[in-house]
C-alpha cells in the first residue's frame, strides 16, 4: 500500500514535470568508479566487500565491485565507497 502510494506520487511528479526525487524516488549518483550516493533508499539488504544490495521501493539495486563499504548512512542517504564495477537493477 505504501509502495503503491509512493509510485502514484512519483507518476504524478513525472506528469507535472517535477523532480521525482522530491517525492521520494531513488536517486543514484555515481562519482568515477569509487563513490556511489543513493538518496531516498529503503535500507540495506546485503553487505559484503564484493557487493552491496540496497532496497529502493519495488526494486533492488545491486552494486558490484571490490573493497566495497559503507561511507556513511542515514535514513535519507547512503554512500558506498570502494571500486565499483557494476550497477544492477533487480526487480
Amino acid at each position: 500500500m505504501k509502495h503503491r502510494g509512493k509510485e502514484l506520487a512519483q507518476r504524478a511528479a513525472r506528469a507535472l514535470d517535477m523532480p521525482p526525487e522530491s517525492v521520494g524516488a531513488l536517486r543514484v549518483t555515481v562519482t568515477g568508479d569509487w563513490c556511489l550516493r543513493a538518496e531516498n533508499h529503503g535500507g540495506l539488504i546485503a553487505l559484503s566487500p564484493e557487493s552491496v544490495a540496497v532496497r529502493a521501493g519495488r526494486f533492488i539495486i545491486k552494486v558490484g565491485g571490490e573493497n566495497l563499504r559503507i561511507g556513511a548512512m542515514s535514513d535519507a542517504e547512503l554512500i558506498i565507497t570502494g571500486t565499483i564495477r557494476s550497477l544492477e537493477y533487480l526487480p
Partner: protein
Amino acid sequence: MRFAEKIWRCIRGFARVTVAPGDREGFFNLCAEEGLLLTEPRAGDGTVTVTLSPEELGELLALEEKGGFSVLSVEKRGGGFILPFLKRRWGLFLGAAAAVLLAVLSSFFIWQIEIVGADAALSARIMGALSDCGVTVGSWAVGLSVPEVQNELLLRLPDLAWITVNVKGSRAWVLFREKTLPPEILSLSEPSDIRARQAGVITETIVLRGVPEVSAGDTVAAGDLLIAGSPAAQGAVFARTWYEISASMPLDCRAKVYTGRENTLWRLIFSEKRADLFFYSGNTYGSCDKIREIRLVTLPDGAVLPLGLEKLSLREYETVPAQIPRDAAEGLLRAELLEQLDARCRGSVAKAEFYSSLNEGLLTVTLKAECLEDIALRQ
C-alpha cells in the same frame, strides 16, 4: 572527509562505537530508520565500528536492547565529551580566568630592567638613577614619560653622552653611550717643570717650551729636573729605562674533587621575592658549586611576567692537596709580569728576559726588561 569537517567533528566531539550485531544489514537499517547518521562504518569479524555524534551515541545505546545488538566498546573523543566534564570543574575555569587576569594586570608593570653594555659599577649607577626617576622593578609602566625619564637620567649621570629607555610590555631596556672626555688643557700661565718619572739614560730631548737641563747620553734618576719651565715647560724626553719586576706563587695548592653528590633546589619567583617550593630545601653541603638558572614567564609579545622559577644546582666538592705543574705556574707568572710592565712602560720594550727560581715550593719569576720610553712628567 574534508579537513574542515574533521575539525568541526573534533570540536563537536564524536564517539567510535563497536557493536556486535546479530544482523549487520539490519543494524544499519535500524540506525537509519532511527535517524542516526553512521559515518565511517568499518566491518570487523562479526563486529561493526561506527562513528556517531555525542547526541546520537545516547540514542544508539537506548536502541541496544530493542535492536538486538550489543555495544562492545565506546571511545569518546573531542570537545563534545570534554566540555561537559569540565563544566563541573568550575575551579579550572576560575583558575584560568584568574591567570589571564593576572597576566594582563602584570603587563602594566615593569618587571625586568636590562642595561645593555654596562659593567657592574655603571649598571648599579644607572639602576640607582632610574630608581630615583621612579623606574624600578614593579613600577607602573603605563603612561611612563620616557623623554622626561631620559632627560632626568642625563642630568643625574653627567658622564653619559646620551641614554634611551625603551619600554615594551613589562620589559624596559636601557641603551647609553659614555662621553669621551676632552684632553687636559695645559695652562701655560702656571709655572711648571718637567721631571723624570723613571731613571734612565737620555736618548732624545724635544723641548717645545722651557729650558732643557739634560741632553742625550745623560743619566738621570727619578725626580731629576729635565726641562725647566719659563714659566711652563712643555716637551718630551726619551730615555732607555730598565725594569726588574718579580712575582711569586706557591706550587702547592688545593684542588677541587667532586664527591658525586648533587642536589637541585627550586624556588618560585614573584618579582623580587623568592619562595622555596619545598618545606626543606636548604643547602646541606659544606663546599659546593652553585649554578643558578632563572626562568621567567614570557608572553609571546616579549612581555616578561614577574613570575618564574629559580633552579639552583648544587654540586658538592672536597679539596685535596695538589701540585701545580711548574711550566703552567711559570706561564701564569710571566703573563702577569708582562701585564705589569705594560702598565709601567710608556714606550716600546727593547729587550725582555725571564729568570725563575724554586725555593721551598715557592716559584719566583723575575722579568728584566729594557725599554725606550718618554719619561717626562710635568710637575
